């Protein structure tokens, strides 16, 4: 009967079957049991872990699955079930268990506000702490080292600064070691330079006008060209004002401070105060200046300290003796070579006749090269110099130096690009060549190649504006005068008045250099840079090192920790700190606790005491107020939902969050009693059935029709046609629906416009209920018929041809063949799929949500509902789409009702599928 050798004959010829030999059988069983044991062990881990984590249901489900799998594998009589073990495991865990969970949820108050089970809520509330009223409080600023390492910068009421690291006692910071100085007032006024510094905004104002009434002083600061002003006078708060108010100049600063304007919109007198022409002369009197009412707006006299840095590996030189014999030092760019030679600040310009080059040594860092190309003009006895910025094509400006006049700037082209006529009328300059910008003559000065000598330069402008002849080397960017301790940047025309040298600790002949401009009286407000630190091979530009920080300034970095600056960092930081809570900082038992967004307190102690037997919380922070667990659900008069699952006080608000409790059938009774649900429910139910039935009917009809047509081999290019027809099915549904929505869009849609152009009718696809329903069916037909075609053509091929041969012999005509043979046989295989399709459409949430979102709305319905809403989308709206927040319990209850409705329909149809199955088995 049964052969045991591999040479067994079989009707299929080459197929041979073998029973396993005994040794193989044993190995196989051993492997089977070993594998099962490993899986069981893993299941045990999961079961315990889920149980430990409070997910009892999941734990039970895994236990059930594990036992089921073991039984199926180990009990021989359950052999058929062994085949479906993987499927059954997945179905149990991810279909049946969620259903049970949903049922469970339907009888609970599960939703926003009641998300956790009671034990978790108790643990959560128990862990909450508070800062007692006698605690030390700090203002806090977060710092971080990495995404998981944070620290806090704390300032207590006394102004003491501390730094708090996780798990450590906060340490006090000595602010004097922070590397910057803090101003004692917001504004500092430097009497020597007449510069006012706002330490809070880090701005400098140099248009400061000083007024005096004999014993006291007042300040008037013109910001941004007098559009705004800032003023400080005795007994007034320091204020910023619009200079022009409704076109009127400011008339008065305060009581008794009427303004009388002088030149350039600058007040000549303000009340009894008169403008001081040369405030630097009054420097001594100004040195005790102190104005303003509060710390936040005080002006005091003071100079921002210049910071002279320490450079690692170098020692600062007390004097420059070590540099005495050195003429030139080489650094890398941008310092390049530095020449050590005397500087004469009284002559602003240096003229090198050999190179026809002028250097403006005090152009004050305007950011433009300070070198000029010089052309010499002479009237026989005196010289004039015409200077054009080096390398400019078609210069628009030139500098002109005439004997006994200050150097002046000359505009060479007006707004239209023409040479201004005033050149000739005012200055006697005859200029015809715009390209070079060189005049033929300047008054009676003619161009000459006879270069002036030192003595020939007879003109002297004002002090500090003079031209001196000297040698220039364009490679020597910096000049340092050791005597005066100043330096000049010849390229940018910048003067540094803080020069420090440092000797290398290992090689004393190598020098590092610091150039700063701390108190430069000529420092402009818009200085491009402030200082250079250069050690050989390395140069650092230091921006505003001499700035004074405002009082209470917090550095951007401290001990490798950086302050959170960007929005992203702040968000990440607050998320992290919320997660770990502030008792992350400080020692155990003496941790920090958050008081409000700005302050933390210490120590942080537990706030609620829980009494297990009475199930009450006592609030230690609020006069021992008690909160009692409210597990019993009663519906207050007039309320729509039961209030329970909270810890509630005798009066006032409950503790948040609430917990999950069983509320019985309340979610179901609500379904009937809630007027918002009851109203449109009937309409929606009818439409849901209609929609699902019509969708199946239309898609199946079209699909089968096309399958029948394409089943004939006589059709040319069948494969291609089939591929084309299947494409709607291939395109992801969500996308297709959105595309259709776009095409049917009432204003912009392509189809809408096409129909409008052809007929003049603009179809209200989404605003008219009937059209909207039609649109849904049309789109669903497009989406669904390829699937029907696919399964129909598959099923058509499985119908044995003998059936047709027999029918042909019996003389059946094509109609009879279709209705009596093809269709019944197709329905045998496809029946369940059609039911599935009905059910799918019954719950076709995506189609409704993406195409119409249920609209147009049904007028007068108390809860938003639409004409095209089907049950599921309506439920979704009720459960998740309202503003009250998610109510999973209620949503689950409706889900179950829908489930029962569809299940009944399915059971009724299953009776037919059973008969179909019998038919199928007879074939």
């Amino acid at each position, binding site marked *: 009967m049964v052969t045991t050798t591999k040479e067994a004959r079989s009707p299929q010829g080459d197929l041979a079957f073998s029973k396993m030999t005994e040794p193989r059988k044993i190995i196989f069983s051993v492997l089977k049991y070993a594998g099962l044991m490993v899986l069981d062990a893993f299941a045990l881990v999961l079961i315990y872990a889920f149980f430990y984590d409070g997910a009892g249901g999941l734990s039970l489900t895994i236990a059930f699955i594990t036992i089921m799998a073991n039984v199926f594998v180990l009990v021989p009589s359950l052999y058929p079930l062994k085949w479906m073990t993987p499927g059954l495991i997945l179905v149990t865990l991810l279909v049946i268990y969620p259903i049970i969970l949903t049922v469970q949820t339907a009888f609970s108050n599960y939703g926003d506000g009641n998300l956790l089970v009671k034990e978790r809520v108790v643990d959560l509330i128990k862990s909450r702490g508070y800062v007692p009223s006698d605690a030390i409080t700090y203002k806090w600023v977060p710092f971080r080292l990495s995404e998981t390492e944070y620290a806090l910068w704390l300032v207590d009421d006394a102004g003491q600064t501390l730094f708090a690291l996780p798990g450590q006692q906060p340490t006090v910071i000595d602010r004097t070691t922070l590397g910057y100085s803090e101003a004692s007032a917001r504004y500092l006024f430097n009497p020597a330079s007449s510069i006012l510094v706002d330490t809070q905004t880090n701005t400098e104002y140099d248009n400061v006008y000083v007024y005096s009434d004999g014993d006291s002083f007042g300040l008037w600061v013109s910001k941004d060209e007098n559009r705004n002003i800032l003023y400080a006078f005795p007994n007034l708060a320091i204020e910023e004002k619009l200079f022009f108010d409704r076109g009127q100049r400011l008339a008065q600063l305060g009581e008794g401070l009427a303004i009388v304007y002088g030149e350039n919109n600058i007040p000549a007198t303000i009340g009894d105060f008169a403008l001081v022409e040369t405030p630097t002369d009054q420097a001594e009197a100004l040195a005790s200046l102190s104005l303003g009412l509060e710390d936040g707006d005080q002006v005091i006299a003071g100079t921002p300290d210049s910071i002279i840095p320490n450079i690692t590996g170098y020692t600062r030189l007390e004097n420059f003796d070590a540099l005495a014999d050195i003429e030139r030092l080489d650094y890398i760019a941008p310092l390049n070579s530095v020449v050590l030679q005397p500087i004469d600040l009284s002559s602003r310009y240096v003229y090198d006749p050999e190179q026809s080059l002028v250097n403006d040594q005090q152009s004050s860092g305007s950011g433009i090269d300070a070198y000029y190309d010089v052309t010499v003009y002479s009237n026989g006895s005196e010289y004039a110099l015409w200077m054009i910025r080096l390398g400019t094509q078609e210069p628009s400006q030139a500098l002109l130096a005439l004997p006994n006049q200050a150097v002046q700037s000359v505009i060479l082209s007006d707004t239209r690009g023409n040479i201004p006529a005033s050149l000739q009328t005012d200055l006697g300059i005859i200029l015809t060549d715009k390209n070079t910008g060189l005049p033929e003559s300047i008054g009676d000065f003619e161009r000459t190649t006879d270069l002036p000598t030192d003595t020939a330069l007879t003109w002297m402008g004002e002090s500090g504006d003079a031209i001196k002849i000297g040698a220039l080397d364009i490679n020597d960017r910096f000049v340092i005068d050791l005597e005066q301790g100043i330096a000049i940047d010849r390229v940018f025309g910048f003067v540094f008045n803080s020069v420090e040298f440092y000797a290398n600790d290992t090689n004393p002949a190598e020098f590092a250099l610091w150039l700063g401009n701390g108190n430069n009286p000529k420092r402009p407000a818009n200085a491009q840079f402030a200082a250079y630190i250069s050690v050989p091979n390395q140069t650092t530009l230091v921006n505003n090192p001499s700035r004074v920080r405002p009082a209470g300034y917090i550095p951007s970095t401290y001990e490798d920790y950086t302050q959170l600056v960007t929005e992203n960092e702040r968000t990440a930081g607050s998320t992290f700190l919320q997660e770990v809570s502030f008792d992350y900082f400080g020692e155990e038992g003496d941790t920090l606790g958050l008081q409000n967004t700005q302050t933390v307190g210490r120590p942080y102690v537990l706030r609620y005491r829980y009494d297990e037997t009475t199930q009450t919380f006592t609030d230690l922070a609020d006069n021992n107020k008690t909160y009692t667990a409210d597990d019993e659900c009663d519906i207050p008069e007039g309320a729509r939902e039961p209030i329970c699952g909270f810890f509630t006080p005798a009066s006032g608000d409950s503790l948040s969050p609430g917990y999950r409790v069983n509320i019985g059938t309340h979610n179901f009774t609500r379904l009937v009693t809630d007027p918002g649900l009851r109203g449109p429910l009937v309409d929606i139910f009818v439409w849901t059935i209609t929609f699902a039935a019509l969708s199946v009917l239309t898609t199946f009809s079209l699909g089968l029709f096309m399958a029948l*047509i394409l089943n004939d081999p006589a059709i040319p290019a069948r494969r291609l046609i089939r591929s084309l027809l299947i494409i709607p099915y291939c395109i992801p549904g969500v996308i297709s629906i959105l595309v259709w929505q776009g095409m049917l869009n009432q204003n912009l849609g392509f189809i809408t416009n096409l129909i409008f152009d052809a007929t003049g009718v603009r179809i209200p696809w989404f605003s008219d209920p009937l059209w909207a329903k039609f649109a849904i069916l049309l789109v669903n037909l497009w989406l669904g018929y390829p699937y029907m075609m696919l399964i129909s053509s598959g099923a058509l091929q499985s119908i044995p041809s003998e059936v047709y041969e027999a029918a042909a012999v019996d003389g059946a005509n094509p109609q009879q063949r279709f209705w009596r043979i093809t269709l019944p046989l197709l329905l045998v295989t496809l029946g369940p799929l059609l039911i599935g399709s009905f059910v799918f459409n019954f719950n076709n949430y995506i189609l409704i949500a993406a195409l119409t979102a249920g609209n147009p709305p049904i007028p007068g319905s108390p809860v938003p509902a639409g004409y095209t809403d089907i049950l599921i989308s309506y439920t979704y709206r009720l459960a998740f789409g309202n503003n009250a927040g998610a109510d999973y319990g209620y949503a689950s209850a409706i889900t179950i009702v829908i489930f029962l409705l569809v299940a009944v329909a399915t059971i009724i149809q299953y009776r037919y599928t059973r008969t179909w199955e019998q038919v199928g088995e007879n074939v």
Partner: protein
Amino acid sequence: MSSGTMSSGGTGKQQKSSMVVSQREKFISLSYRMTVIVIAVLFALFPVVFVVASAINPAGTLSTRSLIPQVENPAELLTNFRALLVDELKIYPFWNWIANSFVVASVTTILGVMITALGAYSFSRFRFSGRRSMLLGILLIQVFPNLLAMVSLFLILSQVSRLAIVIPQAMPFLAFIDWNWLNFFGLNSAGGLILVYLGGVMGLNTWLMKGFFDSIPRDIDESAMVDGATHSQTFWLLIFPLIRPILAVVAVLSFIGTFNEFVLARILLRDRESWTLMVGLFNFINADFNRDWGKFAAGALVSAIPVVAVYLALQEQIVGGLTQGAVKG
């Protein structure tokens, strides 16, 4: 229904019976059917043409009235694609979405088909107590709207996501193992989503395949059994090759279904990088319908290509069908 469609109900062999039909009638019937086909193809492809036109139109808005884009330089046709696939990857990590969709759909399809085929074979070939109620149960389970089981699935997967932390806490003696691999089956990951999908494939596909197992005569099994084959051998060596065509159908359906699935994926995948193509594109178009239309169309086109490719690759198996001889056995 016309006589033309009726006659197509059979296969090649029944042409014998229609020999009486004249050449003229055949031609009329064919041209009638071709007309129907042309109309059907137009209906099927019009939206596709519209999407292609939108995708290559550099104007990129919905309100464009012309199907033919007005461009001077052919490179402009790729404007939307370039924006989507190259320029705006920071905002829309399109390639990640493609990869995610591919992994999820392929794994779900392969595992799902195997699991379902095994179950369907058992239902078809064995008679055991509870068989009928299990079949009914599988059908009923499918009826449950998983849209609202979402909450439960979400909760289950978030529990799984906690395992990597919980296991070392609960069982310190197991802390030496790195349990982080379990996160792959939790929220925000392809693994968890695949598991949820696999839980759902048992239902209807089991019925479909059982129907086809039923249509294969049991004589084939019985003769193999007589020759000493086990059930596994019968399944793998005899039945499996016979049902390969229907497996292909199920596989294609499963792949497309998974690739297109949106509701579950949207709820279970939270991070922009872990999104599947559907979730990504939906959020994309939700931002601004008219303005981003062109880019959306380009994305839609790119998304459809793999699905169409898979279908075309397996088309032979799907439409080729079982050979008559094999079923006759």
